């Protein structure tokens, strides 16, 4: 693959330059019940060669965000507004025909489910080289060589025979490697990995994440890693954006975020992960309830109905992203974690018996909790 990247594409260039600038991006879907505000005003800047981790629960808009940046939301009921500047060019408003020049060549995506994202009736060799044949004038045998080289680069053993396999002849981990190889085929500058390991075993997850990291380093790629698991992005991203109800609620360089997260949602996500250094039967501090309805979201802070710290103000006034003390750290919360006000608010809610707060303190019996 190294020879290909030098012949077909320049290296992604030095770090420090903004490759992707997203500003106030909104993606709304018109459905019979109303307008689903799946992504509602997201802004971020991504430098060349960096990795952005996008974290949130199902329904937080993280997948729609990455699809919108890539221009993949093309259904007629979609309304995308705002701006996505890629390498100096505005992407929003480009037709799918125009976007084809960018897909594969400039931006590529690895999807969540390797079982369904491959075509079951087409040999993987043809799926691997579809991009290459689309974008470059190569013969069949050249394409095959490129395919074999790609399989080798994602460490699939015996690539010469594997290239003639159908997807069902491979394991889940192998198929995800093939999906990564397909995404890498034209040496994209930006790789979107949308929950690339959620469907896989932990050992395979580890292998795939390592593979993505190595490929990123070797190819100087910029990466957006979308996941619901803070553990997955902790050691593998430069910056993390936490999404809730279509917005970024906290954004910071990874080390800064873990050293001092300010948003209660980020804290809740981290605390709800079971950790192996805790003794067994440690009560997990759960976030009660579930993400809000995106057609009629609650007034004020959208996380307030689930937040252990929420006060009256949170239900009325929506917080905006503000800068924290640390460089590059932003959060949207009236009562950020780690402030005296938040401790007082937590205590007050605890005394009032607010279930959200009891659950965060690990004091709510799950059998007593009534989900809406």
């Amino acid at each position, binding site marked *: 693959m190294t020879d290909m990247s030098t012949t077909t594409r320049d290296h992604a260039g030095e770090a420090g330059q903004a490759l992707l600038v997203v500003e106030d991006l909104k993606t709304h879907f018109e459905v019979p019940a109303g307008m689903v505000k799946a992504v509602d005003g997201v802004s971020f800047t991504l430098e060349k060669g960096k990795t952005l981790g996008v974290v949130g*629960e*199902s329904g937080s808009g993280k997948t729609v965000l990455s699809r919108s940046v890539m221009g993949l939301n093309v259904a007629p009921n979609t309304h995308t507004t705002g701006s996505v500047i890629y390498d100096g060019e505005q992407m929003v408003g480009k037709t799918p025909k125009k976007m084809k020049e960018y897909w594969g060549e400039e931006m590529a995506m690895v999807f969540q489910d390797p079982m369904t994202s491959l075509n079951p009736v087409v040999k993987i060799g043809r799926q691997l080289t579809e991009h290459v044949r689309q974008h470059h004038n190569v013969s069949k045998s050249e394409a095959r060589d490129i395919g074999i080289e790609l399989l080798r680069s994602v*460490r699939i053993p015996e690539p010469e025979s594997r290239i003639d396999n159908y997807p069902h002849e491979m*394991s*889940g*981990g*192998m198929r995800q490697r093939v999906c990564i190889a397909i995404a890498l085929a034209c040496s994209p500058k930006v790789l979107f990995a949308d929950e690339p390991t959620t469907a896989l*075993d*932990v*050992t*395979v*997850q*580890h*292998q795939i*994440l*390592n593979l993505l*990291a190595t490929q990123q380093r070797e190819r100087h790629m910029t990466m957006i890693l979308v996941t*619901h*698991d*803070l*553990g*997955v992005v*902790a*050691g*593998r991203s430069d910056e993390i954006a936490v999404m809730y109800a279509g917005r970024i609620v906290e954004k910071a360089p*990874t*080390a800064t975020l*873990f050293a001092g997260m300010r948003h209660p949602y980020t804290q*809740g*996500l*981290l605390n*709800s*992960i*079971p*950790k*192996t250094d*805790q*003794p*067994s*039967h*440690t*009560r*997990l*501090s*759960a*976030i*009660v309830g*579930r993400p809000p309805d995106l057609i009629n979201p609650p007034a004020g802070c959208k996380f307030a109905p689930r937040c252990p710290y929420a006060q009256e103000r949170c239900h009325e006034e929506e917080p905006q992203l503000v800068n924290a003390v640390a460089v590059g750290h932003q959060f949207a919360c009236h009562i950020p974690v780690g402030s005296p006000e938040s401790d007082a608010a937590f205590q007050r809610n605890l005394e009032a018996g607010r279930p959200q707060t009891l659950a965060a303190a690990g004091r709510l*019996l*799950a*059998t*007593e*909790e*009534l*989900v*809406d």
Partner: protein
Amino acid sequence: MAGSGKAHLRNGDDILLQVEDLHMEFPAGGGRTVFAVSGISFDIARGETLGLVGESGCGKSTTGKAVLQLPPPTRGAVKLDGEDLTSLDPKSMRKKRTGIQMIFQDPISSLNPRRAVGEVVAEPLAVWGPKDQDQQWSKVAEMLDAVGIDPDVARYKYPHEFSGGQCQRISIARALVMEPELIICDEPVSALDVSVQAQILNLLEDLKVKYGLTLVFIAHDLAVVKNISDRVAVMYLGKMCELSGSDELYENPAHPYTALLLDSLPVPDPTVDLHTEVAVEGELPSPLAPPSGCRFRTRCDRVQDLCAQQEPQMRRINDAHYVACHFPLVDADEVEVAIA
């Protein structure tokens, strides 16, 4: 691992379930056989939670289903309260199954989409319970309430109107209406978000106390298994590698495979070294032709000639910690003691 043996089985009156030398083989066409489970033994005391971990294809789900005789195992014994389930005729087994319930991985597809939640949860009662509708409903309502679903709201709703986490709560309610002694949870949280996962794990812990349940908890995420289990059994390609109390297992993994699984876990801490290139390459060999000797040897970095020739047996390395490995990750003097 990849070992057999029964050294780790316990005696006593409080043993609810004892599985001995369980084999599960399936024909694979062309005269070949899938060796899904090959000689697993374990026991569970009343009120205990046993975690079964391993990668996809290691036979952990097959083991869970074999307890329910779905299908009956090829060989081996499954004793519930001392009674061997494999020797029961289908009719008595059917009756017996009411005491063992199962919760499945995918909460949405394990509920009938065309049945209202009230009916879904009441179905076991419609077969075995009181015939009186009101009595049935009061039991169903009690269980829905116990899992945190408002019974009056949910009664006439359909599964698609609920989120994944709520569907899993409904599945749990359905398992509970028969008042089972033993519940087999087959990857109950792996399809859920971390926030919902925490809710369900807490719920299972609370229900266990409230209803005096015994649980078999099958999962591939070691952190989840540690959180909920009293003892953990690690499986690999149809064999058991290691069995221990959960805290001990995670502090001192003795089997190289257990150590590999633990090293692969994503840690939510950016300062932790990711062991970027450790020996985690390779995948599970085919259960059609499992390796000779220790089944893990093809991926093990401590492999020796002995591993291919002789299958390691489960042996005790301390108190309640058992491992099936010729060269376990324990101090040298401990090994000598154990071998002697």
